[in-house]
């Protein structure tokens, strides 16, 4: 086939990129080679717009065993044990086909984990949808059942996550899935091919025509014709993935496997070229040997197929049978399809012809890297100035409205569809500040939190991102855990627009600063750009998945458990002003507007609050602990009360709406029998702490001075909290 400018454009390559291909090859590429380059050089696979900025992120630390560049990051958790974890997005496919898009998103990240030799023990997901309406709720229901279907069948608990709404996600929902697995340090596997003459073995599901050009789809904006891309979405089979997991882990124990890599985005192409380029070797593949689901597939189709549940591995020559034996036991295809060569070239044969012959470094290392213009002011959708006067409303009504609002209401309808307990490790599951899973065979547990705040980032990408990192670390601190590493998913719009690129750069720099401050290096992650539909970008939404360690024990619960305990506000009341108040859920829900700036963050103070909290937890002083986040103090108190125990609390005089609902960071609510000691530990850490009241049965009361601001039966709060999402789904489905 002749390579025309139209064909180049169809492959989403620029003329400049095409010229570079010609100069790297020393000739024009074949049609198949053009396809290979188009996926490997897509934004999704090459990170061409973000790579130069991702380098700013810290990626080293005393716990880090493997930083970015492998299938997942790895950290030591004490003894011989390590955990591998990463986050991955499946945003574009989830809009086009919610169920399969989300399901295969789970499948993809799980393969990234067990490719490393680690058995997945936890999944968390971060979801964003347009404001509730029939269409958006159908997407939500589809996404949730896709995650549920895949994770439950595979047998990994989905232990936490978050779900928020904003109309900027209506045409571009976000589905970010975090997974974490565990293994011994000497059991880690890498995707680095080596050993000239070693066989390259294909295992798992057969190759079909599904998902061709999925990576390229994920690298373009949506338009009116997006639904025509449905055939680009892959179909997942969690049962096959479960077999693949067991077979891979068993095969790894034979000692016959040299390297292993899953076939994710860009399938066979990226797995072979990445394994080859990491090992500095070539790979020679004969496509005739690839197990195929359909007849008459071309080399182009086989190379670009994103059929799920497939792996590529390099075994020691002469020990193939040991590997085949294991895969036969699990009823899976395992076929030698190629060989490791010394020439560093990815060579693809099909029906006696050489279809592609590309130096591996050209595909991987020589991929374009852009310093896209970002000198514009970050795109800002919201005004700096709020309404001339912020009218105060009845606080009881405001609180009820907030706890029943889409962002803050209970997500039980979602997480009860996930098996959050399988593998019997879940010490704190969904609905907790942080999820906690124990690692059997050790006395260590892993605490995890997944968080993002598009609204803060839209108002100030740098400060918003720092606030998000701080919140993640605060979530861990409430359970008593110490954050040690993180993975990030950067969801942004079109990087070719300088004002979007500026958001991305600001956000990465803010993340770098905060992750350094909280000693949580980024060991890998994902960038999802072009999240735009018809030219309208999503709110800039960096999502952080943070991993912390703690000694295995029942974690500090987030809800009040006992009446008559003192309620301490660790960190103090905080402050706000008319500008910063515009970033709150209160402003969004009660005033219907967003403006101004996110809350002010002092990272030194924030860290001191975490240290104080950990000291309180370590001494066993906390009956409960819950951090203040969206919705501020009043919402946090309500959240502590849903279990049936409320509180009577007094706050200082001042504007009631500000003091109850502002979202100043660095604050944690602790219920305790020994407030004096909690205050003392706060003082030792240089942190303000105030006894604001005591827990009591069945009511939440807040007053300032002699004025009652809030006085509500806890049952009313929890009913509103629990019924909101089912009502939204029910009413919108029957609208």
């Amino acid at each position, binding site marked *: 086939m002749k390579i025309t400018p139209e064909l180049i454009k169809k492959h989403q390559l620029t003329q400049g990129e095409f010229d570079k291909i010609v100069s790297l090859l020393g000739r024009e590429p074949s049609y198949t080679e053009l396809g290979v380059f188009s996926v490997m050089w897509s934004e999704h696979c090459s990170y061409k717009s973000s790579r130069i900025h991702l380098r700013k992120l810290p990626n080293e630390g005393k716990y880090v065993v493997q930083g970015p560049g492998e299938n997942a990051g790895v950290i030591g958790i004490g003894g011989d044990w390590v955990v591998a974890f990463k986050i991955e997005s499946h945003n574009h496919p989830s809009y086009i086909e919610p169920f399969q898009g989300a399901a295969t998103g789970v499948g993809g990240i799980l393969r990234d984990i067990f490719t490393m030799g680690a058995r997945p023990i936890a999944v968390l997901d971060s979801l964003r949808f347009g404001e509730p309406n029939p269409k958006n709720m159908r997407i939500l229901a589809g996404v949730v059942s896709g995650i549920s279907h895949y994770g439950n069948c595979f047998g990994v608990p989905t232990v936490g996550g978050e779900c928020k709404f904003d109309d900027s996600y209506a045409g571009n929902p976000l589905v970010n899935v975090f997974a974490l697995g565990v293994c011994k340090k000497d059991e880690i596997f890498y995707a680095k091919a080596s050993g000239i003459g070693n066989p390259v073995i294909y295992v798992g599901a057969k190759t079909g025509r599904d998902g061709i050009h999925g990576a390229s789809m994920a690298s373009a904006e949506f338009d009116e014709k997006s639904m025509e891309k449905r055939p680009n979405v892959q179909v997942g089979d969690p049962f096959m993935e479960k077999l693949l997991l067991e077979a891979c882990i068993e095969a790894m124990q034979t000692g016959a496997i040299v390297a292993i890599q899953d076939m994710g985005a860009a399938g066979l192409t990226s797995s072979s070229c990445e394994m080859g380029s990491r090992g500095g070797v070539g790979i020679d593949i004969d496509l005739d040997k690839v197990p195929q689901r359909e007849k008459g597939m071309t080399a182009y189709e086989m190379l670009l197929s994103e059929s799920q549940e497939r792996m590529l591995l390099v075994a020691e020559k002469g020990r193939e049978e040991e590997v085949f034996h294991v895969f036969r036991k*699990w009823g899976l295809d395992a076929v030698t399809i190629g060989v490791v060569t010394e020439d560093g070239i990815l060579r693809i044969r099909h029906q006696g012809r050489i279809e592609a012959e590309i130096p591996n470094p050209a595909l991987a290392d020589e991929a374009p890297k852009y310093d896209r213009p970002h000198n514009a002011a970050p795109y800002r959708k919201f005004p700096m100035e709020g309404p001339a006067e912020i009218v105060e409303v009845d606080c009881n009504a405001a609180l009820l409205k907030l706890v029943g609002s889409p962002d803050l209401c209970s997500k039980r309808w979602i997480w009860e569809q996930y098996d959050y*307990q399988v593998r019997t490790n879940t*010490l704190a599951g969904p609905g907790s500040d942080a999820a906690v899973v*124990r690692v059997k065979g050790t006395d260590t547990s892993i605490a995890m939190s997944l968080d993002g705040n598009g609204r803060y980032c839209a108002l100030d990408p740098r400060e918003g991102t720092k606030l998000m990192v701080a919140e993640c670390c605060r979530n861990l601190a409430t359970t008593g855990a110490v954050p040690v590493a993180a993975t990030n998913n950067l969801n942004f719009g079109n990087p070719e627009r300088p004002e979007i690129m500026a958001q991305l750069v600001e956000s990465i720099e803010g993340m770098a600063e905060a992750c350094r401050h909280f000693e949580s290096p980024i060991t890998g992650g994902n960038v999802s750009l072009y999240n735009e539909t018809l030219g309208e970008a999503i709110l800039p939404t960096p999502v952080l998945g943070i991993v912390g360690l703690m000694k295995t024990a029942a974690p500090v619960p987030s809800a009040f458990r006992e009446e008559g305990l003192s309620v301490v506000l660790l960190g103090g009341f905080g402050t706000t002003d008319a500008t910063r108040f515009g970033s709150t859920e209160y402003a969004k829900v009660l005033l219907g507007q967003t403006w101004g700036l996110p809350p002010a963050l002092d990272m030194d103070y924030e860290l001191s609050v975490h240290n104080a909290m950990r000291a309180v937890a370590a001494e066993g002083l906390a009956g409960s602990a819950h951090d203040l986040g969206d919705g501020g103090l009043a919402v946090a108190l309500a959240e502590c009360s849903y279990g049936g125990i409320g509180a009577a609390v007094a706050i200082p005089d001042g504007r009631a709406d500000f003091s109850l609902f502002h979202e100043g960071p660095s604050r944690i609510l602790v219920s305790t029998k020994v407030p004096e000691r909690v205050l003392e530990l706060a003082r030792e850490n240089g942190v303000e702490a105030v006894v604001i009241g005591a827990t009591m049965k069945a009511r939440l009361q807040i007053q300032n001075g002699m004025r009652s601001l809030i006085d509500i039966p806890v049952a009313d709060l929890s009913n509103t909290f629990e019924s909101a999402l089912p009502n939204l789904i029910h009413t919108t489905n029957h609208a």
Partner: protein
Amino acid sequence: MKAGVVVFPGSNCDHDAWFAINENLKGNAKFIWHDSPDLGDVDAVILPGGFSYGDYLRCGAIARFSPVMAAVKKFAADGGLVIGVCNGFQILVEAGLLPGALLRNQDLRFICKEVRLRTETSNSPFTSLVPQGSILRIPIAHGDGCYFADDRTLDELEAEDRVAFRYLDNPNGSKRDIAGILNKERNVLGMMPHPERACDPLMGSTDGLGIFQSILANIPVLSK
């Protein structure tokens, strides 16, 4: 006691059952691969939860044809104790060892939550140490847990004291709130809730222990 935990392709609570018995109860459990024609030296068999064969076609419908199931049937016929949890219950029903069927949950969604069960009978080797009427907090995690049988069968189950557990707040539409049943000979139990998830104080409930302790206590009697 030596318990055999059967591993079908797609079983995913096999390790949890193994851990509950070996670690929480300090018993002795081993895995039995689904294509073993015999069970080896075991005193009780556990069919664990999960998605055997992907639960394609119908939950448990393919697993019943596994070679190991012929051995399980023979073991049960000879009086051996067999407990099927969740997918294991579905397999027992498909294999004809227990009556009835497990249908899609009535609201059509997968549900994972802790539920309260009432122990309906202590007259079984699985519940002899669990007082009749006692309330157990045990989690469920299933998409197809709605127990169904015709009225005659249900009447018979009740008349013969073969309903082992009922839900206090029926989560899935099961007929007569049934959560677990026994066979006529009372040596086969199928239940949708997961007792192996309620054997460790760290997991929030230890109400499942009584079921395994009962098995443990009854093995010597039965194996004579």
